[in-house]
């Protein structure tokens, strides 16, 4: 009796497994997306349409852009040096007015980066005002992460995008 039960249980198990296999061809594939699907095929195509990774912005500008560390708006030494040059430009031509555009890299949310971009712009403005430029000659605007200058998705591109640009009004 016991062996019969064992036999039946084994048979059931086999049948169960067969059911599992047999139904596969007819079963509609579950709609789980494979997150890796886009990686291998689409990345190269993308980079070619991105016209390289970097687009030079306003090469003829009188001003130098300055750069920031990730999630920071404090001015690095290299940024201060470039800001001093920008202040000199402003002092040489008293009619010049400038808008400081604050930008961020693509990481983090749209909303937080909008605020971060504004603080980057204001850091530069405050520095220039402290160096003697009249406050009404320097305005600020933040584009957050919406206007990257480098279109890659690595630290190289991000470092170029965490920036203030100085646009003559």
């Amino acid at each position, binding site marked *: 009796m016991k062996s019969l039960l064992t036999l*039946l249980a084994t048979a059931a198990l086999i049948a*169960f497994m067969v059911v599992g296999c047999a139904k596969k061809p007819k079963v509609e594939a579950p709609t789980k997306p494979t997150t890796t699907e886009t990686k291998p095929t689409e990345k190269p195509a993308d980079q070619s349409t991105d016209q390289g990774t970097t687009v030079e912005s306003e090469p003829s500008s009188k001003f130098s852009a300055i750069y920031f560390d990730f999630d920071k708006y404090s001015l690095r030494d290299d940024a201060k040096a470039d800001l001093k040059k920008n202040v000199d430009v402003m002092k040489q031509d008293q009619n010049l007015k400038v808008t400081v555009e604050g930008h961020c890299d693509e990481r983090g949310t749209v909303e937080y980066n909008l*605020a971060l971009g504004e603080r980057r712009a204001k850091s530069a403005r405050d520095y220039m005002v402290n160096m003697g430029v009249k406050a009404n000659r320097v305005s600020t605007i933040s584009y957050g992460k919406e206007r990257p200058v480098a279109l890659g998705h690595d630290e190289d591109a991000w470092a170029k995008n965490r920036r203030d640009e100085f646009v003559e009004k």
Partner: protein
Amino acid sequence: MTTLDYILTSNMCRKTEDCGVQKPRTNAEWVRSGKSACDCMSMRSVIAALMLMLVVCLVAPPATAQRGIDINGAIRTGKWNSYKIAVGDFKVVGDWSLAADSLAAAVKKVVTDDLDFHVFFDTIAVNQFYIDVWEIKDLTPDVWARMGADYLVDGTLELKGDDVVVAYRINELHPQVQEMKDEKLRTKHGNIRRIAHMVGDAAVRQIAAEKPFFTTKIAYACAASGRKEVWLCDYDGANAMRLTNDQSIALSPCWDRKEDKLLYTTFKHGSAEVWELDIRSGKSRPISAFPGINSAPSISPNNDEIAITLSKDGNPDLYILNRKGEVKRRLTDLPSSIESGASWSPTGQEIIFSSDRTGTPQIYRVDPDGVGITRLTYEGKYNDSPDYSPRGDAIVYVARGEDGDFQVCTIDAKGSDFSQLDQTGSNENPHWSPDGWHVVFCKQVGAKYDLYIMDRFKKKIKKITSDGKSSNPAWQPFAD
């Protein structure tokens, strides 16, 4: 009816003539087969029968299907005993045509996809082995029950001129087959997905006693037209259409709680301003255009107030505006930190937001009058983009991991009970579904940004856009 009217969801659609609902008495075609599967089988061998009976015992659910899920138990254990539902055919009745046949197939597909995604449901597929062995001709409710389904939704489809009539029925299969609901829905051809979503909605309402969301929409930002504009799609990504034409940068949509309106952030006049867009008319008006940034609006549950980030006083802080955009009060006042990403609790008694007052962004809560600021997240250096569940029990947000990627995580309203929803790619802007059991978020894979939806517990995930340029989703709330 315009295309936009089709695409727009109002949860009151049942009242419109387009979806005119007639309640038929039991239809002759729907008379249940009184026979059990055993009556119609031709036995091949005793062994096969014995084996199959055991198989049936193994795969068949308990004789009585439990209605009502122990939600708290499920949250505690993470185990989810789903409703096993089969989606049968929608048979063409009246004059058969290829058009009718493909519409019927489309209805079945949409209903299946809907229910398969819903956290409370698993769909049961045809067990071909069982069908072959027992030489089953018709997928009757009894056959579905033996293949493991607790519930069955199927129906008929008939073309009447430009109209389509879909008649569906929902059956409970245990302990015996019993009809729970049947209904006829009539619509135009182009609206067939919406009708199918309404069938799915009916199943959720009837079986799980939950408010369904299959006819809701998702607003989002998309750069497929060149510039980033605000777009709208069905919850499953279908019927995507562009709403704004600002030709600058438009993003961060936020739904009005009652009407088909969105607040959103636009750069059309230079810097970031918040405008209100009437989706039906396409008209928009400025709400918040103070100097500096105006961004990240969130409308209060009573629909009267807007929590928003403004920098008009020098630093990005949270303010409360009325719906005209006048400042009612200031919520935060720290001179050197960013306060952003406000989201109201469903009671309106709390607002959560992110602040970098400790150096990096973390999630905080505050009373709507600006007192009682409490920090909620301590793990990790970068926690942002909080959204308060419409159920009031959880907060979804993004956390930056050690590898630098951002992941969608949840905590409870007190900041405990941490859970990570998805492990792949880098993700941002999670937003709850109106039922609070699912989320939509933006996932970056390589250079592509697309929207995904997933449920909170079983973590079934589904990609809903494929343009590679979609972000910033906001799921339409229930209209109530």
